[in-house]
């Protein structure tokens, strides 16, 4: 289990993460959603120990996480937003370096690398240097690298950024399979449908603070299962209803162009976060 207790990060006077309290159960798939600059990446960076918290702590399976906690860090693997790897190494060298950093045997590194490269379709590129790969291939390599060490916890900071729709769906399917193996996953993403499709629970973060947390359907139900959009000249105004008949009654009573649909997680995001940003 991962516990974030009063986790805070200040840059000068600015609170990037503001007393965040959150528990992620073992095997859970949690999505961290928020607008740009909400504090998602800062939170992940603190769990990676790249950033040290100004206040608060991260507890993993009862042990406090810090830069000295090698046993706890052994459980973690991260896919960062940026291509955080040596650009002058070959794909094979990237994997070997990772395996060595996690104290794996050379034979195991080799076997697992073969398997992961075959799975990710990277085998024929194994001797290329990272800087010669396309963005999508670098992402795949990051996934292979993260999986090499059999992590118990995966931190994924926008893992599908820059991927095409097909590659993204492949990644979703992979993440589902990993989660079925009881790997705890914390995912940040800007694709809200991705979070809705994959996550057991969603934590919405706004200006570094936890706004709401719960299963996607529960958050949607909290707003209303049905949405009626009134399409005006420059804007769309949505009204939410839990009762279908009420929604239909509202819809029929409206003049102008209207659409009735099921509420999505994106509606929750817009209502709770978007409206605060746009004032």
């Amino acid at each position, binding site marked *: 289990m991962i516990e974030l207790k009063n986790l805070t990060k200040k*840059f000068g006077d600015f609170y990037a993460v503001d007393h965040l309290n959150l528990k992620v159960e073992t095997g859970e798939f949690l999505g961290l959603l928020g607008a740009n600059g909400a504090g998602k990446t800062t939170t992940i*960076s603190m769990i*990676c120990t790249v950033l*040290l918290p100004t206040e608060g702590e991260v507890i993993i399976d009862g042990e406090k996480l810090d830069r000295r906690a*090698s046993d706890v*860090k052994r459980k973690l693997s991260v896919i*960062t937003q940026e291509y955080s790897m040596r650009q002058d190494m070959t794909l094979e060298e990237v994997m070997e370096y990772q395996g060595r950093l996690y*104290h794996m045997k050379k034979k195991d590194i080799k076997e697992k690398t073969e398997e992961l490269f075959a799975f990710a379709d990277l085998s024929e590129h194994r001797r290329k240097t990272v800087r010669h790969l396309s963005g999508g291939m670098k992402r795949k390599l990051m996934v292979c690298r993260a999986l090499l060490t059999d992590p118990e916890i995966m931190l994924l900071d926008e893992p599908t950024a820059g991927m095409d729709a097909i590659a993204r769906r492949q990644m979703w399917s992979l993440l589902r399979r990993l989660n079925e193996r009881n790997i705890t996953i914390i995912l940040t993403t800007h694709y809200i449908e991705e979070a809705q499709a994959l996550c057991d629970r969603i934590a919405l973060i706004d200006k570094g603070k936890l706004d709401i947390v719960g299963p996607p359907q529960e958050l949607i139900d909290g707003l209303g299962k049905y949405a009626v959009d009134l399409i005006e000249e420059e804007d769309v105004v949505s009204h939410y209803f839990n009762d279908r008949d009420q929604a239909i009654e509202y819809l029929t009573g409206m003049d102008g162009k209207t659409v009735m649909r099921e509420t999505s997680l994106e509606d929750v995001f817009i209502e709770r976060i978007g409206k605060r940003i746009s004032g």
Partner: protein
Amino acid sequence: MGIITVLWEKWTEFKRDFYKITLAAMITPLLYIMVFGFGIQITSHGEPYLYFLIPGLVAMSTMNGSFGAVAQNMSVQRLYEKALDQVMVSPTPLWQFILGQIIGGSLRGMYAAVIILILTGPIRTPLVFNGLSFLIMFLNGMVFSTIGITLSFMAKSHTDAPRFSSYIIVPMSFLCNTFVSTDQMPGGFRQFIGALPLSQASAMIRSISHGEAITWYGIPILLAYLVVFSAISFLFVYKKNNL
């Protein structure tokens, strides 16, 4: 284990960039030998200036080789490639990572020094380089590796590393017993320059090369620098808020 991992990483880098690294280690000292050693035919303390210059260049090469291998590499990894993030999150103890960088950097410095010795080999000189000379070269390389690590953690952008080199390494190259003895510097400044690690390393390597005894305080001074900058490096890697 972590030390071996870093040394492996440095070795892959060395193999890949062998020609670039070798050429870079050769050019500057070779120019100094050509210009100051052969071009300006002067004598120093009654012997060819080359005898004074070569030990200084050997010490300087260990400094340049070690500092360059660590400072530039670590700055790029930390600020540009973000590859250091992967080390931070891994279970490899960070002290082992730092120690690996120090040893790896120092070995690169030793390589640069060995190139000078090979290049100057055909010149018949009475200079002697023995085990103690190599120990001092290694120690000097370790000192400048730790300085490289410290500065790479202080760098705000990856272009800072060459700047640090201009502020620290280039002045030391010229002032610290490489081309001229620190004895010729004005009082006050002489003591300051004389206490810098390169001055000590140059003086000791030169003394050995001339068959003279080294000063008793040279090695303790280098060790003191090593302890101080290692401590700062460890402090940064464990305590720096934003790596």
